[in-house]
């Protein structure tokens, strides 16, 4: 029988006005992979911050017992010294330093402050071998992809003699292949006796590698499942507190005239001027229709959408855009918005929200004239608009005066959606609208999309999740390498068909 490496007892953590965790229990056994799942905002990350000492001992209630001793971590250094290493969702690497420099940052092999680079490089090579990364230790971080960066983070953790490795959504930004490799690596670590805690939204991954799953909801431990009890349905039920028989809301499409038509749209790369990113795309969307754009990462979907939306991406953009049959000028964001086009970005934190301002100001930002007269804002009108959209999109917040930076991913997405709904567009382009948000919030976003379509808007959804496209759209375009390589009615489409279109398209392109 394996021994318990970590026990968190009755952890309670309160922030002003919010109880983030209440009496959470977590028991992890030596050498297992323990998954922690829960909706966004359920408290997973907070729990891990308590464990790693980001929230120092004394700022929470409860006990942490690690390898038989009660621990009072005052900071990350304390927990790392004991072999607990956390790898955050946002990687903490310095882009302009090399792999070796990053791995030993703050922990360099040095004598009297003079770094012994040979020793560092030799150690780095050994570590890279362990994680299966074939790169020169002197390569700069900025020159390797996200998947490899993740491996560097893990190598860094290994360099600290890790006993308990915590991964916070490690595969969120990885491709399918990189994700697989990472999960295999976790299994390899398990054989070597390293214990891992895996925080993930991707239930298939959890299913594949986890020995146990602890489910957290609303800051409480719901249950811990052993390997034999793990099933996606069971996890989903526990996560959302209800069973989601249907992951997509039912919808009666009522499709009308063509609203948006794009003809022969071509875009070149903003820096590499000779590289054509978008190659003559033709596409249309009709009133009340939800159109999907499927494709792999790097197919050019976001680039297409952003170039269409006020030339926010690329150079030498050519092609025509028609709205209700009339050609329109979309050469700047404000013109595009004026003509009734809205684009909801895939990266809400970087491109969508002012995180240091509250919900109200974010919602009205794209349509300030709608709450003002002669450039003077009507405060009351703005407040009622904000409250109205907060209700319509079901934003969970203490009030519209809550900072958007303090909201969970799903609620942030609803704020961005509200912003564009208030701009009252005819065509709404949603780029990965449910990325990084939990099952419950996803359903709410789908419901909003369905309602907008029934109100007669044309909606274009870009998504990498094929089941999502199949579930919510009426028609799907398949994009690959800057071209449309397939178009099909959602009712005829399947994941297989989409993949086949991509593969065939690839053959055609070369």
């Amino acid at each position, binding site marked *: 029988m394996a021994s318990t490496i970590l026990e968190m007892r009755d952890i309670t953590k309160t922030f002003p006005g919010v109880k983030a965790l209440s009496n959470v229990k977590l028991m992890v056994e030596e050498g297992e992979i323990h998954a922690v799942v829960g909706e966004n905002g359920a408290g997973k990350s907070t729990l891990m911050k308590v464990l790693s000492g980001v929230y120092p001992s004394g700022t929470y209630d409860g006990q942490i017992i690690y390898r038989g001793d009660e621990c009072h971590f005052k900071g990350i250094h304390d927990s790392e010294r004991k072999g607990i290493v956390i790898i955050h969702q946002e990687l903490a690497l310095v882009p302009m330093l090399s792999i070796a420099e990053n791995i030993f940052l703050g922990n360099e092999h040095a004598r009297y402050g003079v770094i012994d680079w040979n020793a560092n490089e030799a150690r780095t090579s050994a570590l890279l071998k362990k994680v299966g990364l074939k790169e020169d230790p002197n390569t700069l971080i900025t020159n390797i992809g996200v998947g490899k960066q993740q491996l560097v983070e893990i190598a860094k953790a290994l360099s600290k003699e890790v006993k308990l490795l915590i991964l916070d959504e490690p595969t969120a930004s990885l491709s399918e292949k990189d994700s697989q490799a990472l999960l295999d690596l976790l299994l390899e670590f398990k054989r070597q006796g390293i214990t891992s805690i895996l925080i993930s939204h991707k239930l298939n991954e959890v299913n594949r590698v986890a020995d146990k799953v602890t489910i957290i909801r609303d800051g409480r431990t719901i249950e811990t499942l052993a390997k034999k009890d793990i099933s996606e349905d069971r996890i989903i039920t526990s996560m959302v507190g209800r069973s989601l028989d249907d992951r997509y809301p039912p919808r009666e499409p009522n499709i009308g005239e063509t609203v948006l038509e794009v003809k022969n749209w071509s875009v070149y790369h903003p820096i590499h001027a000779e590289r054509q990113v978008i190659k003559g795309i033709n596409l249309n969307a009709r009133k009340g229709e939800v159109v999907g754009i499927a494709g792999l990462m790097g197919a050019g979907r976001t680039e297409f959408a952003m170039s269409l939306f006020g030339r926010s991406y690329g150079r030498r953009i050519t092609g025509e855009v028609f709205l209700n049959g009339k050609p329109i000028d979309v050469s700047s964001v404000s013109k595009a918005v004026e003509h009734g086009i809205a684009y909801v970005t895939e990266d809400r934190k970087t491109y969508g929200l*002012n995180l240091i301002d509250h919900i109200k100001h974010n919602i009205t930002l794209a349509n300030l004239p709608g709450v003002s007269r002669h450039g003077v804002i009507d405060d009351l009108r703005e*407040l009622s608009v904000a409250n109205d959209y907060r209700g319509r999109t079901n934003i969970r917040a203490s*009030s519209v005066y809550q900072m958007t930076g303090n909201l969970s991913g799903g609620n942030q997405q609803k704020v961005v959606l509200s912003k564009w709904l208030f701009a009252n567009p005819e065509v709404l382009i949603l780029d990965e609208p449910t990325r990084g948000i939990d099952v419950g919030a996803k359903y709410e976003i789908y419901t909003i999309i369905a309602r907008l379509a029934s109100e007669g808007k044309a909606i274009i959804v870009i998504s990498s999740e094929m089941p999502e496209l199949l579930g919510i759209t009426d028609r799907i375009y398949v994009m690959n390498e800057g071209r449309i390589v397939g178009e099909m009615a959602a009712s005829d489409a399947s994941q297989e068909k989409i993949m086949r279109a991509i593969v065939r398209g690839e053959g055609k392109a070369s």
Partner: protein
Amino acid sequence: MSTESAPGPQTGVAQDLQQGPRIAVSALVTNLREYGLVLALIAIMVFFQFTTSGTLFKPVNLSNLVQQNSFIIVMALGMLLVIVSGHIDLSVGSVAGFIGALAAMMMVIWPLGPLSNPLVVSIICLVVGGAIGAAQGYWIAYHRIPSFIVTLAGMLIFRGICQALLGGGSSVGPLPVGFKALSSGFIPDLIGPLTLIPPTVNAAGKTIVGSGLTLHLTTIVIGLVAVLAYAYFGLRARRTREKHGYEAEPFSLFVVKTLVISALALFLVYQFATYRGLPIVLMVMGVLIALFVFVTKRMTIGRRIYAMGGNAKAAQLSGIKTERLTLMVFINMGVLSALGGLIIAARLGQAVPAAGLGSELDVIAAVFIGGASAMGGVGQVIGAVVGGFIMGVMNNGMSIMGVNVDWQQVVKGLVLLGAVVFDVYNKNKA
């Protein structure tokens, strides 16, 4: 984290009065930053009132204080927008010096005929200031050159031109009396003075200066109108919010706040009235402060500046023309730097090569003491103004106390650091 609860029909006045003190205290704690700054200013004023044995609030000194610091506050209004939009402007002191020199040359040296009229010169100078702002803003907005570098260059360039214009180390003056009124003038008493106690006449038949009590009536009237308008608009805004069922701040706190600010304002107005009335520069400053509060709080352009400073990419993708907005922020800064330069020259009565030297640092300090964030997106006009006054009162008070200029710098540095540390601490606690 904000502790404001969800808006809705609630907080009746009766209920409010009942729970008044408790709610007021909690609201006070919530808005510690906002009120804290004003309280700090009052505390500093009271402190110096004692240590200078009553000199600080003497009418003559109050007039001096306003005349010495108004240019800092005028420039701080522009700097606030620059800093909120995520930039910095190091050139304002040099631009002010250059504009002062330009104004003096136009009025005193160059044979411009009717164009050397102070009003015409002032207008030309403001336009030149705007052009300087546009020139710097162009590189910052459209070529994405960091503002720190562009304005550092501007700081060197305009200080150099200022000195060259004045022909090396010499000063140019005296400036016309009409121009000097911008800084040292007082508003005329249109309604007529009110003598409450006739001045004492000495044996030689001369009146003793400072004896008796004569009030500048126009000043009193302006003060009363301003205070009444402040209370009226405050009350009206509350009413509208309540009528629409939105929560306003607790009534008790509103009353206390309005009374304290009104009393303070009336006291200062009274002090001015016993001397020569309101300084012209104070009126200019007051109008500008009101204008900038309105622009930042109520106008779409103000909102857009905050959004741009908070997240420039998101603002751009929301249809905000960030380049043009940045350019406008710097043009505004240029115009206000020029006005600052005119005020400095008018106060000195001449243009000197070192006019405004180092004042960019005071201006920037005022904005940061006032709670603006160096990262952009955060900051209030009133904060910057109060920050400017805090610096001014400390300068003035320490000078009267006879504190060495070197040590004055040390104290000002500590206050700047303290204010920002307080801010960050407060934010982390929340």
